[in-house]
């Protein structure tokens, strides 16, 4: 038998491709479609393109830089498409403006999918363009063919609002403006255009090309009769409760919620999908959620991701044939009201709609847009003889708010000097270090047992930007960078409490922050494990009465041996890095040093070794 060589030598053609001087290319005259596409993008005042470069959009890339002069939008170099999407995600939550993400329509979009799902579940608008090379007869052989597909939209169609594949420059202009409008109509969501490489490169040949003017759609408003019925129930209630999750799309949403709560003197439970209700307000009773819900006679849920789990309880204890115990939390006659835009944009496959909950009044509408009318309806429904009772309820709520704050203070003292550092102390120290800045807590990943929400005095809409949406890890780091990018222009100080597991999905986002000079303070919540899964292992082992030792529960979940040197990782990419910090006494001084760096425009990371939760 003839023996094959150990390595196939390169062909003459391959050698030429690698070493020869490229052939002189024909000099194209006129303007390519990609220049016009840049005009379309500019018409929407998109500031940034978050992108990992790819040949399938090389025409548009070149036009953005030369024709568009790399401003509005500016190209931001990302090291993974999942990071690109998450950065646009974070940017939107800080700025309220959707950004552009460019990627290879195949390999890049496949990388991006998890982040797209997060954006979908978090109802965040992102405009995505996937390059594609459709014409199989003319596309270059080899890699470009692997990077082409008939229908790239199918990759994200289950969790995006809309996608299209324009076949002419005019079609692109219409579809881009349409995509922007769909993305920005509540409920918001990501949208995708598949952009053919040939279309980008073709010369503009239509003298009648135009860019459609963007006019925002009014958000979907709740039915006025339903709002009046809801107002009557709320006014008549003895113990009403408002539960909020993603109500406040804007600062105005937060103000409206406060206005409604004060009008009724009703406690608000904030599930923190957004910064909805200031935790400095005496009507924020998140700390007493379970008792309030148990005793309520009317509960109104506003943009709640999981209203079933708000009014019911599920205990993961193996009962009910292993499914876990389900118990109703509310009294039998409690009236339930919901306003949610989530019902307006649902799809069947991915199960982000949660368990079904029957309600007495359900309004498929944008809650923020509907709040002013609800406030008026409540104002009209309050009889004069009810005002004293409402005022009295408010007085009682002021008192219980102070009591809850005191309980939290006492609880925070437990384990104060423990090493690893308690999550209460971590948050208290970080808040103390940034409280004199115009700070924005851009993410808090890895779960610090609610101490961020308890320790930071959150009084403005940008103090807290919510979580990932679908709990897909790998969001915290790049979303923080994107949010900090927006905050830089707004003069805010960005701080992120960063889980170790989340960090390692795509640490290249650190480089993007350093390269583009995006000031940001990362404080690691480094518990050296995928701790949620570690606890699940323990639960299952105990359920079967097998138990599990430390070594067993860390199998597949521990992030140790070797411990990751996050400070060194940060320094390797141009950040200021310090740590690991295990002694709580060292944390305050280290934070002061890091804050000084960020004030100077740098990116700083402190690696803090923490208690698990």
């Amino acid at each position, binding site marked *: 038998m003839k023996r094959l060589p150990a390595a196939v030598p390169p062909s003459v053609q391959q050698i030429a491709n690698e070493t020869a001087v490229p052939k002189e290319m024909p000099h194209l005259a006129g303007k390519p479609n990609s220049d016009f596409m840049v005009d379309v993008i500019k018409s929407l005042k998109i500031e940034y393109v978050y992108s990992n470069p790819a040949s399938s959009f090389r025409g548009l890339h070149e036009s953005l830089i030369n024709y568009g002069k790399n401003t509005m939008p500016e190209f931001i170099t990302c090291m993974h498409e999942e990071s690109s999407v998450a950065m646009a995600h974070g940017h939107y939550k800080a700025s309220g403006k959707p950004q552009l993400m460019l990627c290879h329509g195949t390999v890049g979009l496949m990388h991006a999918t998890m982040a797209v799902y997060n954006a979908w579940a978090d109802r965040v608008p992102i405009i995505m363009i996937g390059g594609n090379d459709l014409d199989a007869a003319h596309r270059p052989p080899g890699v470009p063919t692997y990077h082409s597909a008939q229908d790239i939209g199918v990759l994200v169609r289950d969790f995006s609002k809309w996608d299209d594949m324009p076949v002419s420059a005019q079609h692109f202009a219409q579809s881009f403006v349409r995509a922007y409008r769909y993305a920005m109509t509540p409920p918001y969501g990501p949208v995708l255009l598949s952009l053919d490489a040939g279309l980008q490169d073709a010369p503009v040949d239509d003298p009648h090309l135009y860019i459609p003017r963007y006019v925002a759609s009014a958000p979907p408003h709740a039915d006025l009769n339903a709002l009046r019925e809801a107002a009557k129930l709320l006014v008549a209630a003895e113990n009403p409760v408002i539960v909020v999750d993603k109500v406040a799309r804007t600062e105005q949403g937060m103000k409206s919620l406060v206005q409604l709560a004060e009008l009724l003197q009703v406690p608000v439970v904030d*599930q*923190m999908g957004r910064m909805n209700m200031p935790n400095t307000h005496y009507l924020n009773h*998140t*700390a*007493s*959620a*379970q*008792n309030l819900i148990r005793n309520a006679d009317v509960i109104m849920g506003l943009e709640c991701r*999981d209203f079933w*789990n708000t009014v019911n309880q*599920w*205990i*993961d*204890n193996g009962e009910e044939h292993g499914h876990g115990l389900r118990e109703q939390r509310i009294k039998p006659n409690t009236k339930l009201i919901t306003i949610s835009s989530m019902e307006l944009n649902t799809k069947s496959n991915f199960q982000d709609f949660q368990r079904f909950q029957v309600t007495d009044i359900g309004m498929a509408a944008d809650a923020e847009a509907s709040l002013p009318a609800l406030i008026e309806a409540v104002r009209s429904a309050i009889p004069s003889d009810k005002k004293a009772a409402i005022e009295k309820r408010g007085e009682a709520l002021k008192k219980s708010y102070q009591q809850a*704050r005191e309980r939290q*203070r*006492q*609880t*925070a*003292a*437990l*384990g*104060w*000097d*423990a090493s*690893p550092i*308690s*999550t209460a*102390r971590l948050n*208290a*120290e970080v808040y*103390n270090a940034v409280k004199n800045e115009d700070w924005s807590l851009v993410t808090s990943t890895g*779960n610090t*047992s*609610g101490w961020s*929400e308890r*320790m930071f005095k959150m009084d403005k809409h940008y103090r807290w930007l919510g*979580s990932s949406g679908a*709990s*897909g*890890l790998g969001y915290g780091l790049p979303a923080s960078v994107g949010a900090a990018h927006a905050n830089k222009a707004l003069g805010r100080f960005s701080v992120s409490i960063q889980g170790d597991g989340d960090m390692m999905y795509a640490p290249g986002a650190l480089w993007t922050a350093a390269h583009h000079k995006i000031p940001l303070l990362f404080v690691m919540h480094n518990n050296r494990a995928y*701790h*949620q899964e*570690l*606890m699940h292992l*323990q*639960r299952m*082992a*105990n*359920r079967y*009465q*097998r*138990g*599990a*030792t*430390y070594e067993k*529960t860390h199998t597949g979940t521990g992030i140790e041996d070797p411990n990751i040197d996050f400070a060194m990782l940060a320094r390797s990419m141009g950040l200021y890095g310090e740590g690991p910090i295990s002694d709580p006494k060292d944390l305050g001084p280290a934070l002061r040093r890091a804050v000084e760096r960020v004030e100077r425009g740098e990116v700083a990371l402190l690696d803090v070794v923490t*208690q*698990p*939760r």
Partner: protein
Amino acid sequence: MRSLALLTIMSLLSVGALAQTPAADSTPPGNAETGKKLFVQYGCYQCHGYAAHGGAGPRLAPRPLTFAALSRYIRQPKGEMPPYTTKVLSEQQLADVYAFLRSVPEPLPVDSIPLLKSN
């Protein structure tokens, strides 16, 4: 990748701490040093923290429940707590863990902690 963060927070905010003034009666002898190791080895720290101060689960110390009450809860818990039957944690091991919990000192007075005073 799933997270039970919200569930954890809501539970934490509302569940009372599993600790109170201990009763002196019927507490079996245990070794606090051994108990401290078992506390980590068998995963108690995962939810309650290395100092038993609380985390995803409530605080266990200082001032733990009586041994009888703690034992009853650990063997047949009602809530999120996974059960620790005698097959998983023997009576003696539980006694050692209990000795550790009783050895945990009182926290600093909250008003002596500047960061909490100003909160």
